[in-house]
């Protein structure tokens, strides 16, 4: 860790980079935003924006349950509950003929209501309110180690899973004729999303976490024509808005998560204007 810090001293001789909390936040942004970039490509292509939104709500309940039980570490209960929640929705979605948005709507509102109910018990809601907007500057070295682990695991799974998800996004029946199990692929994808949302929620905040799963790819698809560029541009948008958002937030003393999202949406509107010049 000291090695990384001294490397940052050489590479980033700026005032903001002299604080340890900013260095940690910067490293977290470098690890997390590429994940949001690659995952968002399939969130947008598979029309899962509403689903990923509900994952934030599920994570909220996970925090409440973790606080209530108090037997596991808060992070473990948060991740476990988010993954179960995501898998449960995916399973019900595949078994039921009710429309997807209704099912997600039901689970999403149940989760947020349950979370609020548990958290407000005994008038103690205020200590949870930091989860609503998140605090990117509170990242510790242990958090960074966990992030690195998740980062590597997601990259490996993404390499294994991506082709299946791509064929599924074109046509589910066609995918199944090629021996692709839609339930399996969607479940693994949902679980990955849930883990990434759960570990990021305390820094980004429930209110805006979904924008990071939608905006990078929504912008990238405006100016790309094939999968490789789609990925590349999506990751770039996420990285650029992450880094510039963090620095701006430091100098103007604003919430970092929100600043990142505002920059990402500015980039999205820019790509919308550029669309006619790029898309064939």
């Amino acid at each position, binding site marked *: 860790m000291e090695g990384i810090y001294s490397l940052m001293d050489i590479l980033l001789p700026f005032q903001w980079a002299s604080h340890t909390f900013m260095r940690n936040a910067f490293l977290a942004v470098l690890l997390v935003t590429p994940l949001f970039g*690659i995952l968002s490509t399939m969130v947008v*292509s598979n*029309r899962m924006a509403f689903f990923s939104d509900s994952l934030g709500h599920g994570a909220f309940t996970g925090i409440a349950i973790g606080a209530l039980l108090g037997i596991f570490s808060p992070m473990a209960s948060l991740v476990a509950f988010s993954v179960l929640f995501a898998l449960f929705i995916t399973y019900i979605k595949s078994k039921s*003929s009710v429309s997807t948005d209704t099912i997600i709507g039901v689970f999403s509102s149940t989760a947020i209501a349950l979370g609020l109910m548990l958290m407000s018990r005994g008038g103690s809601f205020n200590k949870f309110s930091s989860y609503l907007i998140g605090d990117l500057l509170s990242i510790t070295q242990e958090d960074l180690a966990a992030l690195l682990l998740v980062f590597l695991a997601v990259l490996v799974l*993404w*390499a*294994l899973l*991506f*082709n*299946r998800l*791509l*064929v599924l*996004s*074109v*046509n589910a*029946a*066609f995918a*199944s*004729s*090629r021996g692709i199990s839609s339930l399996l692929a969607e479940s693994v994808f949902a679980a990955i999303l849930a883990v990434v949302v759960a570990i990021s929620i305390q820094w980004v905040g429930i209110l805006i976490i979904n924008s990071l799963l939608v905006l990078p790819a929504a912008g*990238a*698809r*405006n100016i*790309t*024509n*094939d*999968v*490789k*560029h*789609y*990925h*590349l541009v999506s990751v770039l948008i996420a990285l650029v808005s992450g880094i510039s958002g963090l620095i701006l937030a430091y100098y103007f003393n604003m919430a970092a998560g929100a600043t990142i999202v505002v920059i990402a949406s500015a980039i999205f509107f820019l790509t919308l204007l550029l669309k006619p010049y790029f*898309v*064939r």
Partner: protein
Amino acid sequence: MFKAILHHRAASCEDCSGLCCTKIEDFSVKAGQLEIFSHVNLHIHCGQLTAIIGPNGAGKSTLLRAILGEVPHTGRLRYVDAKGKHTGHPVIGYVPQYLRFDVSAPISVMDIFMACLSKRPVWLCSGSSLRPMVLEQLARVKAEHLIDRRLGALSGGELQRVLLALALDPMPDLLLLDEPVSGVDRNGRELFYEIVADLRAKEDMAILLVSHDLGLVAKHADQVVLMDKGVLVSGTPEDVFRDARTRQVFGMVDGIEAGEGGLA
């Protein structure tokens, strides 16, 4: 000539002796309490195009999805090769109904081929090694020029030809086409049917096609099955289109008679 006679004889006879075929035995599908179709028995022969016709809601698409194993069903699917030996499950290719794509999806024709042909993720795969193979496969459906286009920028007929090319790798024993070109313009439809008819002859493949295009069915199909919650009539196009039940379902038009003339 001899092949044609043999095929037409096989279409009406009950066993598959001497020809490879896929047998669908007593298929039934229920959705909750509702019976979608029941007791469907079909013999689909290699080198033949079998067309399923019928009104909306007759269970045609559901039958294809049951054959794919996507819908729970009762009954058995058996594939028998030319020697009459039971060879288990056939390799099935599938072309879905033409649907409006999300035109903003940045997926090129090459990307979707790479996703199907290669284990390596498309965002890591250079693709240059696969390119000659993909061009060859696209050539089978007269679509080489589309390799670098976005899926969303293809016309309906072009998109369905690309999906057909994908369904042909690996080369299937049984090719299922679910209203592949409904909603596609006339030229696109005819080109698609010509390619399919050509494949049947060249690859000696069994093709099962759901279609509302009675004119093109009459022109290209070897066997026609009229379905409405079960098989009502099956046989050669002449037989089925002459049948009173078919006329009742469709309120037959004269155009079919002309198509029939072409077949005889």
